[in-house]
């Protein structure tokens, strides 16, 4: 969820003007210097953590991506861009990318459309809506660990509830997680459920932030609820929707826990997503060099998405 934080609006407070007289110019400069020093002191703890656990590792990743390492993680040999070349020549890389893309296509639009419908139906002041709002926000509190364990049991081929419901409806049971044709769909269904809470909360807040008067006056002018939603609410909601889209795509590119618990990338690599590939390369095969190269490719993709988001939101913000 790191990415959701990117589009923070930044109000500017005009700096109080310095009433510096010429004769105490030096005193003012000394005071300035003291202020800057104090400011850095306030920033220092955070900066130290970022330096050690964010900036240094980023550089070290770049360094590692050009090395071959032994299983202890020690650098053995400099190989230049060979790790990247190997990566771009390997079938696994493209297969993992394709699976990740498919996963994104399955989960992101579904979760957003579902959340949009739920948010539109529950945004009003009618009786009981508060309760529904609580219910639909609930998945946000569920961790990927517990969620995946519960759903693994629901998906169980013989004793799981889903197959029981299917037989009740007279349908054939499905091997949810062990059939290569179904596994990715099954994990996607679980993921949509898990991500629904966040998407719902964001969209509900977005809809509620749109002036109720505007929607009301359109309705008085004779527009139906559906028309108001399509003509007024939806266009005004577009920056929020766009934000949610980018954040959700980034999130789905980073999905790991549900795959680690539910399928381990199988069956027949049907759920072998990108981050699971990085994880396996680094912590199962202990090839930190190629794993770092793979992680940097992910970084590049996410960076492009983030920059697109900034560019578009910068423009949109003025229309809001």
């Amino acid at each position, binding site marked *: 969820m790191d990415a959701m934080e*990117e589009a923070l609006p930044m109000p500017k*407070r005009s700096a109080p003007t310095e009433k510096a007289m010429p004769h105490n110019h030096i005193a003012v400069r000394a005071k300035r210097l003291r*202020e800057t020093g104090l400011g850095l002191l306030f920033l220092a*703890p955070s900066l130290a953590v970022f330096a050690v656990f964010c900036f240094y590792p980023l550089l070290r990743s770049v360094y590692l991506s050009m090395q071959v390492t032994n299983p202890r993680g020690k650098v053995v040999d400099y190989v230049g861009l060979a790790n990247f070349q190997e990566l771009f020549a390997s079938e696994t890389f493209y297969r993992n990318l394709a699976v990740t893309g498919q996963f994104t296509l399955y989960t992101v639009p579904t979760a957003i459309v579902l959340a949009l419908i739920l948010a539109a139906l529950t945004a009003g002041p009618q009786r009981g809506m508060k309760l529904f709002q609580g219910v639909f926000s609930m998945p946000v509190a*569920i961790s990927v660990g*517990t*969620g995946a364990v519960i759903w693994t049991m629901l998906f169980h081929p013989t004793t799981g509830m889903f197959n029981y419901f299917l037989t009740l409806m007279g349908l054939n049971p499905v091997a949810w997680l062990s059939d290569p044709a179904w596994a990715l769909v099954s994990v996607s269904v679980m993921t949509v459920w898990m991500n629904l809470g966040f998407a719902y909360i964001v969209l509900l807040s977005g809809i509620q932030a749109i002036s109720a008067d505007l929607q009301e006056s359109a309705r008085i002018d004779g527009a139906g609820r559906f028309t108001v939603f399509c003509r007024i609410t939806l266009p005004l909601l577009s920056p929020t929707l766009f934000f*949610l889209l980018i954040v959700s795509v980034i999130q789905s590119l980073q999905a790991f826990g549900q795959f680690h618990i539910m399928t381990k990338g199988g069956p027949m690599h049907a759920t072998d997503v990108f981050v699971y590939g990085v994880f396996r390369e680094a912590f199962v095969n202990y090839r930190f060099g190629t794993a770092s190269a793979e992680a940097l490719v992910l970084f590049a993709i996410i960076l492009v998405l983030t920059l697109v988001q900034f560019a578009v939101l910068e423009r949109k913000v003025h229309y809001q």
Partner: protein
Amino acid sequence: MKASRMLSLLQYAVLAALAVTVLYPVVYAFLTAFMTQQEAMSYPPALVPKEWSLGNFLAVLQAVPIARFMGNSLLISAAITLGQLLLGSLSAYAFANIRMAGKAFWFALFLSTMMIPWEVTMIPNYLTIRSWGWLDTYPGMIVPFLASAFGTFLLRQFFLQLPGELFEAARIDGCGHWRCYLLIVLPLARPALATLAVYSFLHAWNQYMWPLLVTNSPEMRTVQIGVSMLQSEEFTSWNTVLAGVALILLPSLLLLVLGLKQLVRGMTAGAVKG
């Protein structure tokens, strides 16, 4: 009039059906946790336990040190939350209230940390933690997460909204930045601090990948790793695992009920223009 009445009835029906669907997996976990072994294995499967048994909860408490897992998770999440509140409020104060040179640069530097995905830093961080001998320790699971750029921005937004006259008056009274931070800003920022606290705690409690990488021994596992490992062990029955899941879910759900407002504020800080 009649048509709109029908429409709202339909709306409630649709919402109720969807609510049941969304709630079902969690309800299923709690109900199955109370079933006896035979009942859970019976066919057709029971939907609701006939007699509410606590046997599974006792079994899971004996099968794995789940109390220990919860203790670990609690300690780690609390430490991360406190750290983020402290470090975040300090840097937010600097960005909002201290007139320092090069502020834009430092601000951009903070901003840039949010663009670096966790996966890129994960391998070097693992190597760092290992070289420090911090595998299987609390610091290894706490220290990397103590600073939060998101927390800094969230608090900075709030600090900027505090009336400027307050600080002018304090300065005239001879109040320096440290006292200003401690005695004026922190007490006034309680709502924002609460928002960040709920958000950070839930995140830390729900973490999966990092604890998976840096813990090996059972007594250092967090709840999230503990429960998924429980599931992959053959001899434990489902109800036992789900009893464990239910226990782990309780704090999260409690936090959701008590802190939904804070959570919503935290999550939408970036999405909706405030």
